[in-house]
């Protein structure tokens, strides 16, 4: 990796760890391996959102051309959000694409992602199914997102109605996450989810 990239990443790594936000456990970053090419980020779900209390793991890959090109970031933890793919964890955020500036840092990226969790952009979606639910059935979206935070991101309490429906599909031999995806994308209509899974 180019000298400047390593220099920058080392410095930013320290910046994140020493930051006020890290003290409050809002953001964190860890090394994966020892060459600073790949990092593991962590952000806490912002308060007053369906992600409150959750912790999301991020895969951060630093390109050769860093910081002139943005780092490649995606969610490792499964999340239900209009701008994040519920399947791959790919993120649609301008600063990770054409609005990246060489003076931006890991800390700004993590904080921007946290802000994205609090303020989704459903008109610029990464996951069309989620975005549709966000716009057309917002209360169901909030419940679904909260339930995903419970199942995948360590939030203790979750909707028991949803849990029952997931178990119902699990009894039919469907994997837990597969059942969750099918039900979430069918607005928790069990019959439609079954049709989608078995057709």
């Amino acid at each position, binding site marked *: 990796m180019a000298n*400047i990239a390593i*220099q*920058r990443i080392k*410095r930013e790594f320290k910046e994140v760890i020493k930051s006020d936000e890290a003290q409050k456990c809002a953001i964190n970053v860890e090394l994966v391996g020892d060459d600073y090419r790949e990092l593991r980020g962590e952000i806490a779900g912002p308060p007053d959102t369906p992600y409150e209390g959750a912790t999301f793991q991020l895969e951060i890959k630093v390109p050769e*051309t860093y*910081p*002139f*090109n943005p780092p490649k970031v995606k969610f490792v933890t499964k999340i239900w959000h209009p701008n994040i793919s519920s399947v791959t964890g790919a993120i649609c955020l301008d600063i990770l694409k054409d609005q990246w*500036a*060489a*003076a*931006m840092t890991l800390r*700004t990226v993590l904080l921007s992602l946290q802000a994205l969790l609090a303020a989704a952009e459903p008109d610029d979606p990464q996951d069309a199914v989620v975005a549709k639910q966000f716009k057309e059935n917002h209360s169901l979206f909030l419940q679904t997102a909260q339930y995903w935070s419970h199942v995948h991101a360590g939030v203790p309490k979750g909707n028991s109605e949803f849990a029952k429906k997931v178990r119902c599909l699990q009894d039919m031999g469907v994997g837990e996450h597969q059942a969750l995806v099918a039900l979430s994308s069918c607005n928790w209509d069990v019959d439609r989810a079954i049709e989608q899974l078995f057709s």
Partner: protein
Amino acid sequence: MAAYKMSDDDMEYSDTDYDDYYGNDYEGDMDHMVPMKNDPEYFDVACLTDTEVERLLNESVEQLSNSIQVTPSLAKLLLHMYNWNQVEIVAGYRQDCHRILASAHVKPPQSTTAKDPGGENEGEIICPVCLGTIAPEAVGQLTCGHKFCKDCWSMNFEVQITQGISTGIECMANNCQVLAPEDFVVPLLKRPVFKEKYQQYAFSDYVRSHPQLRFCPGPNCNIVVQAKECRAKRVICTACKTQFCFKCGGSYHAPTDCETIKRWLTKCADDSETANYISAHTKDCPKCHLCIEKNGGCNHMQCWKCKYDFCWMCLGCWKTHGSEYYECSRYKENPNIAHESAHAQAREALKKYLHYYERWENHSKSLKLEEETLAKIRARTQNKVMAGTGTWIDWQYLLDAAALLARCRYTLQNTYPFAYYLESGPRKDLFEYQQAQLEAEIENLSWKIERAEMTDRGDLENQMDVVEKRRTTLLTDFLQV
């Protein structure tokens, strides 16, 4: 074969354009001075090389740079951002120069000029990118005042250029959209290969932002076409002969406009599955039911077995296709459709689409088949000349006729998307009437060309004149771009 033997008189005509012969109503000289005045497709364009385009762009840059007193590099950026509209820039600049410069991202919005980060101590500036300290002489900054070391700028430029970005390179600070002008970028590029690439990409960007210029879409063609106005008119590249629409850069599509043809092509691509069955190349003779393969462009078919003359499109008797009754091109809507069920309406909509699609597709196929006809004409001409029947020049008119046929059929093909989207009413009736007339004459011409041995030259030239007149009439009435 006497019909083909040219008299001396005929030979004289063959030296001049047949238009002149029939165009007696013009004053001889006028005909050459305003040859295109009556042609609705006439479009004044120039095919330029990169050097000529560069000269043209530089003239604009110089003019603007002189009239508002900015560096040529800034003038170029301004022109690029304002689509080369000098009048707008000059007027705006005189009114409020800050607003113009800010909206072109030449300067930052007034309030956000960066505070000098290492302001108090000039010797100790830290580059926010490499985090190293920079000596004052190694600082590079744009009008926004964000300071970075020149090495970081260079590296950033090289990364951006590698990704094909040139005129769009921005300042490296967060949320700063000030653009780096050419005279800032180029001196900081260390390797000549990057300078070259930067110039090349920037040149494409400038041409693309210029409403009067368009790259020829022909493969590996470097010609840039210049037109006074950006209109949906036909351009034929002088270098590679590619024919395209100036406005959208796609295949030429008169009388249909750019949006409609785009909608049509998308629709055809989407609905291709339903329309696929149409691609069958064979149909049965409506009289003796012999399977017939269409091997020429002409829709006037004759069964080789029973000699029945019929229309390939509607399979009706060709006799009813005499120009007065020719209605094969017209789609007859079910007058009671509003009262039918949704299902029936959907079926009707599909039927209507297929009617136009079949004809559009059929003419496209005919155009290809007629290319083969052209090869056959060449071979036949050669045989004739070898056998002593006339000279090459005597047979030249057949090639002219084939070229005219291709041009007319191309227009006819493009009348179908136009008609599909045209609302019912007297205008559509008139259009479909003219379309039917054109189609009938084109099929006549195609029939005559394929069998040129049995017709005489005068007849064919007469037919050519009729077809071109029909085409011009239709375009004059309906080509509105």
